[in-house]
């Protein structure tokens, strides 16, 4: 894996939407009417223009989040990722989004203290696999986490997810994708909710309870009728994806990562000397 491979994957991610996401948006457009239909039409036209012109779909090219799974130490791959991000910032190009939290001074190249965000998941065997997510701030700013009491159970989880989506309203550029993390700890639930966004929208959920909950939540979110860009309509969310982990007996952590319609994700897989980029 080289920095050039990372930069190329970032280019693809930023300039072309994954087919599952584009298909879901097209279905929404066909179901809506009035200005809600118009706005979805403009989004889809934008996707086409970005793909044909090789330009970023959105000017907010996001904070870049990396999900690395590999055998052994990852310091070398972290270095390659950072070099790849700096390279992509120039070449794609990406907007320089990363600033000091207090002075708000921009670092200029999307690198900085703790940036890009790299999550490492060591595994006993298998090759290197990297997932990349470009997370815009409009949707990140309305994401939330909470610590429920265990007796609040599934009802409490649903209530928090719906409350978060209702409060977000039009801000995160609906139709949104809702990543839900349940269990773990405050930090682990937040990470689970982000990882949930890396799953394809059309991929079935194996765990029966999670699958059921995803379906229920999607129906209840869409019944809020916030609609595309908050203009009203049937489609407030394209999908709900839920990931769970075991947790402390006294806790029920829940996190909700809200993602705008432009869900930009990509995967790299090393196979011997070859690097495959897939959506």
């Amino acid at each position, binding site marked *: 894996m080289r920095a050039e491979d990372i930069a190329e994957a970032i280019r693809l991610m930023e300039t072309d939407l994954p087919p599952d996401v584009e298909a879901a948006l097209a279905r929404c457009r066909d179901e809506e009417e*009035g*200005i809600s239909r*118009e*706005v979805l039409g*403009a*989004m889809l*036209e*934008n*996707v086409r*223009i*970005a793909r044909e*012109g090789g*330009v*970023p*779909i*959105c*000017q*907010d*090219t996001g904070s870049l989040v990396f999900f690395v799974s590999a055998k052994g130490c990852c310091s070398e791959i972290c270095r390659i990722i950072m070099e790849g991000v700096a390279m992509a910032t120039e070449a794609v*190009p*990406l*907007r*320089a*989004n990363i*600033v000091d939290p207090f002075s*708000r*001074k*921009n670092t200029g190249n999307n690198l900085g203290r703790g940036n890009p965000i790299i999550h490492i998941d060591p595994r006993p065997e298998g090759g290197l696999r990297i997932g990349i997510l470009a997370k*815009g*701030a*409009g949707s990140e*700013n309305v994401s939330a986490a909470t610590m429920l009491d265990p007796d609040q159970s599934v009802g409490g989880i649903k209530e928090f997810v719906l409350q978060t989506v209702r409060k977000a*309203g*039009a*801000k*995160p*550029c609906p139709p949104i994708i809702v990543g839900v993390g349940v269990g773990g700890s405050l930090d682990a639930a937040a990470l689970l909710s982000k990882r949930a966004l890396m799953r394809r929208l059309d991929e079935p959920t194996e765990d029966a309870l999670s699958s059921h909950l995803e379906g229920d939540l999607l129906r209840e979110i869409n019944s809020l009728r916030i609609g595309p*860009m*908050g*203009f009203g309509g049937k489609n407030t969310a394209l999908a709900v994806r839920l990931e769970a982990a075991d947790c402390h007996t006294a806790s029920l952590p829940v996190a909700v990562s809200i993602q*705008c*319609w*432009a869900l930009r994700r990509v995967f790299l897989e090393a196979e011997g000397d070859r690097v495959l980029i897939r959506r």
Partner: protein
Amino acid sequence: MGKAYSLRGKIGDQEVSKLQVGDIIYITGEIFTMRDQAHLKALEILRGGGRLPFDLRGGVIYHCGPLVKGSRLVSAGPTTSMRMERSEGEILARTGAKCIIGKGGMGSGTLSALSEHHAVYAEYPGGAGALAARSVVGIKGVYWRELGDPEAVWVLEVEGFGPCFVTMDCHGRTLRETLKK
């Protein structure tokens, strides 16, 4: 759905009056990108009795942090307007801007300022940065670049910039019933 209008150059009170919630506007002329930091800086200057280095009277403010590479505008969709809610009323009062473009809607402070100062708020499709860039024919200038490129004020020359959906008009009407403070 409402009517479609083309706006050209400086916007007058009469043009603002005819715009209603649900209408779609297409803008030709200059627009000024202003987001979080530019709102704060403009107010700091104006409250101190100073003048801005650009003239917003009859002008269009665009809530946007564009992606610019050299002299090329690459992608320029809207950013979430609600972050500017605390400043917008005073910005309208002090600058004489007539049109705000953003996304996601604004609050009751802006709504009453739109009535008082006879201006309109419209929304560009969120995330449609590539589409927006296609109607930008040139960059006429840039101010306050020390704020960082996304936060600077870019003067964009646009042609048929839209669809911008009017969601708050000067008659006190708003597309969304629930207004956030």
